[in-house]
């Protein structure tokens, strides 16, 4: 088994956590005047999968995609500038937090409409097959809410029918906004549904970044070796903060702090951090903090788009 560098994993997990904590800290200043859906608590899924991918692989995400964007190599400065609505942003200030894109590293976009990017990942995989690219796959990220959408079923079916080079990652954080999976699914059987469409599917418990990485790595290998069509993973995870916004919402009655506790206890950040030599860990953290500071400074001093930009990019 090829083992992943714990330093790499820790750097990515720490970076995402700290970027989002910083976003939450800045948010009350109203410098970010657009919704943010924080990934805090769920970083392990994006990090585990992205570390198993290559730069040429394409990922498609959801409105909660800060973690995916950063894990896949999206530019941090451009991301923060985008949240600030600046011209230097990843989307020139025209997308915002919910639509982060960085084509250079295969972050192919995210949608505010649940389930919407799933077939796009499948279409990208169709194009990979069409062109005969061997060492390239597409990965679709969606939540347990995305599974409710009709397009999920249509996409599963077509991907399996065509045996397309795509990995499906269901980030199951139990909630579609504030509605628990229990209130939406007659049976908690997401992986069974995926299998019914004709693809291998596995549920990965415990937000386990090492396991997620290892499964994704093997899945990519099987697909690029031509030994498998689409492969499905349901990754159990938990959103620590509000559905949208910087705070938490355990006082709102739809969930309890007790429900959160095991996930905090099982936090992957200290788990991987503790595998590192303290000096090494501190060095990583220092470097990340410097990078984050620079990114926010870059966003602060970047210009807003000129008013004429309102009308550019409507058409090619």
């Amino acid at each position, binding site marked *: 088994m090829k083992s992943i560098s714990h330093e790499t994993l820790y750097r990515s997990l720490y970076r995402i956590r700290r970027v989002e904590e910083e976003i939450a800290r800045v948010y009350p200043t109203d410098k970010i005047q657009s919704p943010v859906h924080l990934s805090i608590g769920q970083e392990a899924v994006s990090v585990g999968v992205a570390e198993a991918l290559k730069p040429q692989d*394409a990922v*498609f995400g959801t409105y909660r995609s800060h973690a995916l964007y950063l894990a896949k190599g999206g530019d941090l400065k451009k991301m923060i500038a985008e949240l600030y609505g600046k011209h230097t*942003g*990843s*989307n*020139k*200030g*025209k*997308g915002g937090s919910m*639509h982060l*894109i960085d*084509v250079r590293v295969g972050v*192919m*976009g995210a*949608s505010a*409409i649940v389930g*919407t*990017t*799933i*077939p*796009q*990942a*499948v*279409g*990208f*995989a*169709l*194009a*990979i097959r*069409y*062109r005969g690219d061997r060492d390239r796959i*597409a990965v679709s990220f969606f939540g347990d809410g995305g599974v409710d959408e*009709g*397009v999920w079923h*249509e*996409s599963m*079916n*077509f991907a399996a*029918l065509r045996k397309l080079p795509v990995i499906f990652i269901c980030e199951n954080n139990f909630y579609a906004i504030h509605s628990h999976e229990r209130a939406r699914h007659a049976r908690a059987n997401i992986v069974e549904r995926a299998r019914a469409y004709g693809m291998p599917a596995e549920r990965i418990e415990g937000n386990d970044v090492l396991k997620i990485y290892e499964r994704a790595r093997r899945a990519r290998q099987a697909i690029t070796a031509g030994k498998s069509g689409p492969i499905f993973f349901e990754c159990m995870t938990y959103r620590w903060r509000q559905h949208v916004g910087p705070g938490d919402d355990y006082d709102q009655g739809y969930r309890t702090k007790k429900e959160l506790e095991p996930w905090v206890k099982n936090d992957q950040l200290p788990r991987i951090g503790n595998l590192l030599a303290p000096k090494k860990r501190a060095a990583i953290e220092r470097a990340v903090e410097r990078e984050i500071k620079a990114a926010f400074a870059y966003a602060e001093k970047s210009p807003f788009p000129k008013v004429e930009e309102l009308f*550019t*990019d*409507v*058409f*090619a």
Partner: protein
Amino acid sequence: MKERILTYAEAIREAQEQEMARDSSVFMFGMGVDDHIAMWGTTAGLQKRFGASRIFDTPLSEDAMTGVAIGAALAGLRPIHAHIRMDFLLLAMNQIVNIAAKARYMYGGSVNIPAVFRSVIGRSWGQGAQHSQALYSFFMHVPGLKVVIPSTPYDAKGTLIQSIRDNNPVVFIEHRMLHTMKGHVPAKPYTVPFGRARVLKQGSDVTIVGISYMVPESLRAAHLLEDAGIRVEVIDPVTLAPLDMDTILRSVKKTKHLLIADNAWPTCGAGAEIIARIVEYFQKEKLALPKLERLGFAATTCPPSRPLEDRFYPNPRTIAEAAHRLLHGRRPWTAKGEISKEIAEFRGPF
């Protein structure tokens, strides 16, 4: 030069064949594109020539397949997604409106969506409530989409080639009754630019803007009006987004009378948009407002029963009478021309 006569359906087929031969990134899919009906001939023989990887049938999954087209476009391909009825596009609205139309903009210009969504509209016989709708005004409403609706075989080929080469999402709309109509179509590939209306018949008394199948129906109406000594100018916008208002305004300034013969419901429709822009223009220029009227589907659901269906759609007689009323008020005048040849001759069931 000898004219080369093709049907509208053959012109569409030829546009796709020539573009697929020219550019290996062009491919197409849709329900029934490879069956024996071949979308009424518009895809005939393409799978035999290009193989099943470049033209294929799909599951009945309009939503996902539209997303697949967009994903393939994001990867640099140029998909054509074909629908045998425009009504089915309602199942694809999320992908077309929320992603295809917006991707380039909301992704800060870093991607293009060069996809064509072909769809067929129109009456034939008794298609009823859900096989008759012409929903192009839905798409005109949304920035980022081009809406192309040619009425002649020449324009069908030229605008479809332009649609395929365009780097933006294009909704391309064909009327069933146009498929069998014939006209001159050059053999070589050529493009017809978007946003240029055609004046198909010149006249000085009244302007009729026809849309899709209402173009030939308006030309027939113009012929009927000649008997009453009325000289009609008939305009085909060819594309609704972009919309060539200059040509329409020039004509209306001359004739002072405009009738829109729409192939859809008038309410919030293409005709409503054209008339709104005319009113704005004349008001701004402090000109006397011309006489304006819209004609289109009856404000009801399309029924299959023949006597009801015949009343639902505009026809050369109702178009001619509306134009006559516009010029001469209630002065009694009746025309003939209830049922055009291709409708009378049409046999189903499909």
